[in-house]
C-alpha cells in the first residue's frame, strides 16, 4: 500500500519531467540570458574569473582570449537555442593535449556560475545551460 503510493508518486514525477522537457524549442532561454549583449557580458566576466582563478589560469597562458570569447558567445547562443551559428573548432580539437582534469573542468563551471550570477541569470535557467555544457567534459578533459 505504501509501496503503491510510492510508485504512483514516481510515475507522476516522471510524467512531470517528460512534459517539462517537451516544450523547449523557442528562444525563451536565450532571452533569459540577455541575448547577445547578455552573453557577451557573461563571457567577459567568466574570463575575468578564469584568469584570476589559480585552478584555471595556467590553462589560459598565451591563449587567444579574444577569439575564444567570440567563439564562446556563439557557442552559448547556439546551446540556448538563439539565432547564431558556431564557427569555432570542435571541443575535442581545441582542448586536447592540455592535460585538463576534472578539478579544472569543475572550477571553470564554478567560474561560469559566478559570471551568470553576476549578470542576473536565474538559477534554473543557469542549470538548463549547464545541463547542455556538462556532457562536453568527455571532449574537454584528458584525465579524471
Amino acid at each position, binding site marked *: 500500500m505504501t509501496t503503491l503510493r510510492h510508485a504512483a508518486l514516481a510515475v507522476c514525477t516522471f510524467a512531470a*519531467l517528460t512534459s517539462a522537457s517537451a516544450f523547449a524549442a523557442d528562444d525563451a532561454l536565450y532571452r533569459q540570458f540577455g541575448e547577445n549583449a547578455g552573453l557577451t557580458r557573461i563571457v567577459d566576466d567568466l574570463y575575468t574569473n578564469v584568469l584570476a582563478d*589559480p585552478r584555471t589560469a595556467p590553462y589560459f597562458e598565451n591563449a587567444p582570449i579574444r577569439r575564444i570569447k567570440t567563439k564562446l558567445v556563439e557557442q552559448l547562443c547556439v546551446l540556448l537555442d538563439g539565432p547564431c551559428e558556431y564557427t569555432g573548432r570542435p571541443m575535442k580539437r581545441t582542448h586536447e593535449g592540455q592535460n585538463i*582534469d576534472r578539478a579544472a573542468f569543475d572550477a571553470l563551471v564554478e567560474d561560469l556560475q559566478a559570471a551568470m550570477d553576476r549578470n542576473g541569470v536565474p538559477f534554473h535557467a543557469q542549470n538548463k545551460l549547464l545541463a547542455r555544457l556538462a556532457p562536453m567534459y568527455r571532449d574537454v578533459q584528458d584525465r579524471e
Partner: protein
Amino acid sequence: MPFVRISASLACTIACATATLAFSPGARADDAPALPDVPLTGGKLLLTGGVTQVEGAAGGGLAPWAVIGGYGTASQLGADVHGTYLHTQDYALGTWGLTVGVANRVELSLARQRFDTRDVGAQLGLGENYTFNQNIFGVKVRLFGDAVLDQDTWMPQVAAGIQFKHNEEGGVLKAIGASSNSGTDFYLSATKLLLAQSLLLNGTVRFTKANQFGLLGFGGDRSNAYHPEFESSVAYLVTKNIAIGGEYRMKPNNLSFAREQDAYDAFIAWAPNKHVSLTAAYVALGDIATVKNQRGPYVSLQVGF
C-alpha cells in the same frame, strides 16, 4: 516485553557540504591573488553531493546515494564530520560521525548512534532513559557513471556499499528476540541529477536484517533472512544553496512483538558554501517498539574540512 526501538532516522538531503582537502594539482596558490567571485574549493557542483544519511554514508537523510562524500575529484580527498539529532514523541536519536571520500571512487564512513528511550524505557522494563548505542562502519565504491555530468543520457551514477553495524546492547537485544546484535547491510544505489529540471533522483536497494536500522538488533522470531528493501530520495534544487525534497525507506519487520513500518521524511537543506550544510526535516518512522506512530523533527549539521 516490549522494547524499544529505534528510530532513527532521517531525513534529508541534499546539500552538501564537505570539503576538500586539496591535493589539487590545479591549486598552485603561491601568489594567491585575491579574487572575488571565485571559490577556491575542489570540484563538483554545490548541493549535488548530498548530505550525510543516518548511518554515515553520503546521501539523503534516510537513503545512501551513489555519490562519494566530499567534493574531491580523482586527484583529491574530501572529508566531513556530521552531527544529527532526531526527536520523536517518545524517543530521541543522536548520531555523529566522519565520512571520507577518496579520489571520487571510495567512501569510508564511521558513525555512532545513541538511541534514547526516555520515559518509554521504564514502561518497556529497561529503565528510564535506557540507551542503545550502535557503531557503523561503511564502505561505498562508485562503480560507474557520473550523476552530474552525464546530462545527455539517462545513465545514473551507480555505487555499491556495505554497512557493518554493531549494537553494544547485546544482552537486551537477545532478550527482546533479536537474533543478533550485529549485522551487515549490502546496498546498491543509483543517483541521477536532472540538471535542466534542477531535480535529483535516487533509488537504493538494500539487503538487510536490521530491526529499526539495527538499533533493535538484527533478525528476529519472524525472520532472520536478508530481505531486499527499497529506498528513494527526490530533491529539488530551489536555489544554488537550498534544496527541498522527500524520502522513503522500507524496513524489515522481523520482530513479532513490535511491528515495524516504512519511514518517510520531508526535508530542506541549506549549504551556504562547500564547507557547511544544515538540514532540517520532519521524519515519520512508524511504530517503534510497540509505541505507535513515532515522528518528529530532525536536524543535521555537516562540516567539511
